């Protein structure tokens, strides 16, 4: 018979206001096996834990039940507590009387009764608990970062700085992400390239950092500390080890009608191209869909002009398999194309552009050399209208439900830069709210209004139409309760941002969770913001939610700190609550291996003694280091041979019986 102690927590008033904690302790005292029961204000505090430790020693407890908050909150804390007092950490059970009781009930009597029942179930389980010991698994001291934007670069550099090897997998031919396309950056207006390119060069030259550009993650196996990842190297048709980045091929290539993605399609690039002058690695890539030789067998000019002999039309995709201790997701965002918002005329009028397109039109390295010109006729605009919140903050099927967070600030930036370069241009911003919470952010926006004379009008734009080469803007001025009509030479849409489309399939590969908007979910919104709930998967940058650069970089470094904390360990304790099969019941049917999401189950022929008969049988064997204890196999097994340690069927049934008693 176990000697069980019950500890009921008030959680301040969180529990005590709706649950009569003293009555719960008193009632549970008479449960079989319970030799001690008490209640206390904060069981998780130092003095609360002291009460538990003392009771264990004084009453020779063999099992502990704590009635408190969710085990997700403090199971680890209390396991350490009981272990410190000399009992096995798996002899502890938590009855969740906060999230599952006090927080969701109003009637104190009912809540108290429920808390007693939940406590009783936990006691019933502890009676069947057995001490469990965690196995150890080694940690591969290398990290993988997926996505080479500013987030991925910063995380990788910080990890490398701590002395660990780190690989960046980037699907584009160069690292840099969206920041490489930006002109100046708020709130300080330093040029994006000037602060980003040194970091790109660092990443490219750091011998701890390996760049896998033009690559994608193909397959992920394993678990925290021991991931095995297959990386697909897409063919560049250029030998990256030979290419010197001289760019000779890119200027000679006769296929010239290919929209240049880096410049948002405002100009064209060759079929063989280097995305931009500061690309890392500075290696050419041939787009087979644009290449004349690849399509018709004629041309081959680039191969002729390349003195390094780097062009290789026969290159095939390659697969590289490597092991990692930790994986960082840094897949970033994209701006939506506002094609569904026909009222703004983005589909019809060249002078209606998105804000990222506008960045290129303002950028000194952009298609117009930094000279702001109307895309329709190449003339200087005299009147520009900015529209905020395009596709953000809505509930209709066209909109994202969230605020994209960065557009208020970059719109103020755009407006200010235009006024700075071209003081005569008339600039109007239509806004719903101006959101500028950030250090020096509101001051920045106010400068646009007060110093630069940008007109901010509260209201949305309802219609944009073109007449004789002039954009006619119809909009609300809510403060004046008026509908206004104004002419514009350009309309810039602050279109919503959304996670990269490749994020969802990647999340499936990583078994990492996402929200309904496809942003990766953090393990805890406040306390574990850079970790995914899946052990060993970390989150960096805008893949987790909209962010500007300062916030992205802070999160990237925080993420690196978490990764370093993991890689610094030589071993990890495995979860001992894993599956195992009873060899006298298992009939080797293979059903369990088919459902195991971690590939932890194999089969072996084993000599089995069953009812006095000795025979060789095919038996399921669980790799305890790989099993994550999800329990899928235990419910699938038709012969009831699979069971989870710590969550055995009879333990669960004992809980159910205790609840139904």
């Amino acid at each position: 018979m176990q000697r069980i102690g019950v500890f009921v927590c008030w959680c301040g008033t969180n529990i005590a206001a709706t649950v009569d904690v003293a009555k719960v302790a008193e009632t549970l005292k008479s449960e079989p096996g319970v030799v001690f029961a008490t209640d206390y204000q904060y069981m998780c505090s130092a003095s609360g834990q002291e009460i538990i430790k003392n009771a264990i020693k004084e009453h020779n407890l063999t099992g502990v039940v704590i009635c408190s908050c969710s085990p997700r909150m403090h199971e680890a804390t209390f396991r350490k507590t009981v272990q410190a007092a000399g009992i096995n950490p798996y002899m502890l059970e938590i009855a969740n009387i906060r999230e599952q009781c006090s927080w969701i009930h109003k009637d104190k009597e009912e809540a108290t009764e429920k808390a007693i029942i939940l406590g009783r179930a936990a006691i019933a389980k502890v009676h069947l608990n057995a001490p469990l010991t965690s196995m150890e698994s080694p940690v591969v001291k290398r990290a993988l970062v997926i996505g080479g934007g500013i987030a991925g670069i910063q995380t990788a550099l910080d990890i490398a700085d701590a002395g660990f090897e780190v690989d960046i997998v980037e699907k584009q031919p160069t690292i840099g992400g969206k920041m490489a396309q930006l002109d100046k950056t708020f709130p300080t207006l330093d040029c994006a390239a000037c602060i980003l390119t040194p970091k790109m060069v660092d990443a490219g030259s750091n011998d701890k950092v390996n760049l896998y550009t033009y690559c994608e993650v193909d397959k992920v196996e394993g678990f925290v500390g021991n991931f095995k990842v297959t990386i697909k190297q897409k063919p560049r048709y250029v030998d990256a080890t030979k290419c010197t980045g001289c760019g000779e091929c890119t200027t000679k290539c006769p296929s010239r009608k290919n929209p240049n993605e880096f410049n948002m399609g405002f100009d064209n690039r060759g079929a063989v191209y280097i995305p931009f002058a500061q690309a890392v690695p500075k290696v050419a890539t041939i787009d087979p869909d644009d290449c004349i030789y690849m399509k018709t067998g004629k041309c081959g000019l680039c191969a002729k002009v390349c003195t390094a002999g780097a062009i290789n039309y026969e290159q095939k995709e390659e697969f590289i398999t490597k092991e990692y201790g930790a994986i960082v997701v840094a897949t970033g965002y994209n701006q939506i194309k506002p094609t569904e918002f026909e009222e703004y005329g983005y589909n019809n009028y060249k002078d209606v552009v998105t804000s990222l397109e506008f960045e290129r039109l303002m950028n000194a390295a952009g298609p117009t050399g930094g000279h702001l010109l109307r895309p329709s006729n190449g003339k200087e605009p005299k009147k520009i209208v900015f529209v905020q919140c395009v596709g953000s903050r809505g509930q209709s099927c066209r909109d994202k439900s969230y605020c994209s967070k960065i557009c208020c600030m970059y719109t103020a930036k755009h407006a200010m830069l235009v006024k700075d370069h071209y003081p005569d241009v008339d600039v109007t911003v239509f806004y719903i709210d101006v959101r500028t919470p950030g250090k020096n952010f509101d001051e920045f926006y106010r400068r646009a209004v007060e110093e630069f004379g940008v007109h901010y009008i509260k209201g949305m734009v309802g219609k944009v139409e073109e007449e004789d080469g002039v954009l006619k803007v119809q909009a609300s001025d809510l403060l004046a309760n008026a509908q206004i009509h104004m002419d514009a030479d350009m309309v810039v849409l602050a279109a919503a941002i959304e996670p990269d489309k490749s994020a969802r399939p990647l999340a499936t590969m990583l078994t990492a969770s996402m929200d309904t908007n496809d942003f990766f979910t953090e393990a805890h919104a406040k306390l574990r913001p850079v970790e995914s709930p899946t052990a060993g998967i970390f989150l960096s940058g805008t893949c987790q939610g909209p962010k500007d650069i300062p916030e992205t970089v802070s999160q990237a470094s925080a993420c690196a700190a978490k990764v370093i904390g993991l890689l610094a360990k030589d071993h990890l304790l495995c979860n001992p609550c894993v599956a195992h099969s009873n060899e006298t019941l298992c009939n080797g049917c293979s059903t369990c291996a088919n459902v195991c999401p971690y590939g932890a189950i194999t089969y072996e022929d084993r000599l089995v003694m069953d009812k006095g008969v000795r025979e060789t049988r095919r038996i399921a064997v669980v790799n305890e280091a790989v099993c994550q204890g999800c329990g899928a196999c235990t419910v699938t097994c038709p012969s009831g041979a699979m069971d989870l340690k710590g969550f055995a069927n009879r333990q669960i049934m004992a809980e159910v019986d205790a609840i139904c008693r």
Partner: protein
Amino acid sequence: MLNTKISKEDLERISGVNTRKCMKCGKCSATCPNFDAMDYHPHQFIDMVDKGNIAPLLESKAIWTCLSCMACLQRCPRSVEPAKLIEAVRLAVVRQQGENRLAAEDIPELLDEDLPQQAIVSAFRKYKK
């Protein structure tokens, strides 16, 4: 005499509109093609009904000059559907006025080449219970 005791709840029930969903962006009034002919504008209908300030709307010109073109309904980013609320206010008035003033039989006579289909539908919205 017009019963002016129409409540916010009545209008929300008739229209199915939840005025609290409005984020006050003004897109409806930015979109409205008949803005100048309306003494109250779609965003004001939402705001005024939300605050229970309904009497002026019952007396307004806007309930008759609204084209019921549904542009505001379609463009509202928060799916508040102001046109439905305007319709509800109008119905609250029309229903008190008793008889129908337009029958389907009258239509062929009133028809002229340039009349958009939508105007006929709109007329039914205004002249029939």
